[in-house]
């Protein structure tokens, strides 16, 4: 696990991500508590590309947030190799997320007022006052890899496709071993969707990371090694198990 984003991505195998009997309930004022995730269990094998799909409100995003340690589950565990992420205190989860997880959002969530390179470097700022030279070089390489000019304009000036490419570069900056992507192509047109899907899968594979993504995009789902369907808070039987053999996913 790298200590900072300064390190070059090493070829290493990420640990197994295991979600076991995960329960998340949401209580809102004047409404009875509602179970968003109901004993969800599945694994993300090292280097696998796993997709989650399902109707709105099924709990897909909540599941991603729980995996990332952003939401504390009411029961169940999220394990990263031997590490029980759910047992970590908040600061520990922050550290784990910073070092091991890269997030890609549907609406990019860039800082529109900062330039390309500053957005990519942002996750390194969280624990570095002075930016290491190696980190800047890596950010420049990543920008070039996703087809952006490292000296490019502020993020708010980029097209939507460019913004999502920038978001992918930012997610990869600290060489995470797990990419969590929430509807990464949902707000893009068909052409851009296909390009972003390619880019996301390719760059993540280059980084030897695992991917857990949420999508309704058939094209993107078609590239996943396994597709799970969430419905009513529970995991339904795996879709298209034949893909598992075709893609050689364990």
């Amino acid at each position: 696990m790298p200590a900072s984003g300064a390190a070059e991505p090493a070829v290493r195998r990420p640990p197994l991500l295991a979600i076991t009997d995960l329960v998340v309930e949401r209580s809102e004022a004047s409404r009875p508590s509602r179970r968003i995730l109901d004993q969800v269990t599945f694994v993300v094998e090292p280097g696998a590309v796993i997709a989650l799909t399902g109707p709105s409100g099924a709990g897909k995003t909540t599941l991603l947030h729980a995996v990332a340690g952003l939401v504390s589950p009411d029961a169940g565990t999220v394990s990263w190799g031997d590490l029980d992420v759910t047992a970590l205190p908040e600061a520990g989860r922050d550290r784990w997320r910073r070092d091991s997880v890269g997030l890609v959002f549907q609406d990019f969530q860039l800082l529109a007022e900062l330039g390309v390179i500053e957005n990519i470097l942002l996750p390194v700022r969280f624990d570095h006052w002075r930016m290491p030279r190696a980190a800047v070089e890596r950010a420049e390489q990543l920008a070039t890899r996703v087809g952006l000019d490292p000296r490019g304009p502020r993020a708010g000036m980029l097209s939507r496709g460019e913004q999502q490419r920038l978001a992918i570069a930012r997610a990869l900056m600290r060489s995470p071993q797990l990419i969590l992507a929430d509807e990464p192509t949902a707000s893009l047109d068909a052409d851009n969707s296909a390009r972003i899907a390619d880019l996301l899968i390719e760059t993540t594979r280059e980084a030897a990371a695992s991917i857990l993504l949420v999508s309704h995009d058939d094209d993107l789902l078609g590239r996943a090694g396994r597709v799970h369907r969430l419905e009513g808070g529970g995991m339904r039987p795996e879709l298209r198990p034949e893909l598992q053999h075709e893609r050689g996913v364990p």
Partner: protein
Amino acid sequence: MNPWPVVIADLRALRWVAWAAPLLVAIAVALGVAISAQETALRRSSAQAADDFDLLIGAPGSHTQLVLTTVYLQPEAIPLVDGAILNALAGDERVRAAAPIAFGDSVRGHPVIGTTAEFAARWGRAVPSEGRLFARESEAVVGAEVGLRLGETVTPSHGVATRRPAGTDGEDEARHRHEGVRYTVVGRLPRFGTPWDGAILVPIESVWETHGLGNGHATEDARLGPPFDAARVPGVPAIVVKPRAVADAYGLRAQYRQGGTVAFFPAEVLVGLYTALGDVRDVLVVATTLNDVLVFTATTMLLLALAGLRRRRYAVLRALGASRSYILMSVWLGAALILAAGCLSGLVLGGLAAWVVGQLVEQRTGLVLAVAIGWPEVLGALGLVVVGSLMALLPAVASFRTPVGDSLR
């Protein structure tokens, strides 16, 4: 951790608010700073202006008016005191020097003051920066701000007109000119920073003669200054006395408080004025403090609302790996910067406003207000920076406490 990129992004996102909010704070702070600096300068400068007026003797009337007329040359007709007192004072062992002060004429708006050469030189403290002191009735020495050249000859007019550029006369002056009376400028006094810098000083004898009162001496060709002829010396509006010692000053004041005269130290009047000024200042300080509280509260509420609107932005940073303390630091720094920038700009703006007011006061009265931002103003502004920093914690803590999962939904 380095919160600056997020702080810079947040400030850029604020657009015009990033300028408007500090400006509002700056104006609120500037009001307090300007009032404080101006009041301090007014006290100091007005006290300095009265330095050479140890004891004033005049006819019964308003002490304040006598001070305003003699020290600050604010024109007003005041009753005359018997000129014979000048001789009594000249023979009094407690008196180091005494000088009459007479006014009522002007040249191009500059008041013409009749006095002695000794007082014109501020009891020997001042030496003309150009030329010399007057030695004849037809000679004048001008203040540093008077736009007359040495050797220039002028004719006084009765009454006071608006100050005009050199070489131009107003209609009022032309109508009331003392024809036949001429003064030749023979010297220029150094700058005192008082209204006397704009005055034309002439021998007291010439003022008496101009108004048909003789020259105060037994003969026409008597030398200028005291002693005067007891039978011929006319009345004067005021007499400035320089006592030999503090005890002498009190003795003289007690003596000339009776028998148809008033005697007092200008400092007494100033203390009274400062008390009134202090009361006004206190009211203004309360008003500006309330103003500061309102503006600081409004700005903090604005920043709090902005932090609320940016919940998702900060939640995304958390999702990317930022710790809660990083968010706390970023939001606090952004808010504190806005408030601190306002306070420090207010210090500068307040100093500038006090300087502008000082210039206006100098233009209108000739009293130079040495406006300066002192420690009280600096400490006041720094205190507000501290208060602002503490208030900036509100939006920071609000962001710190917001659950990430809820904000990302």
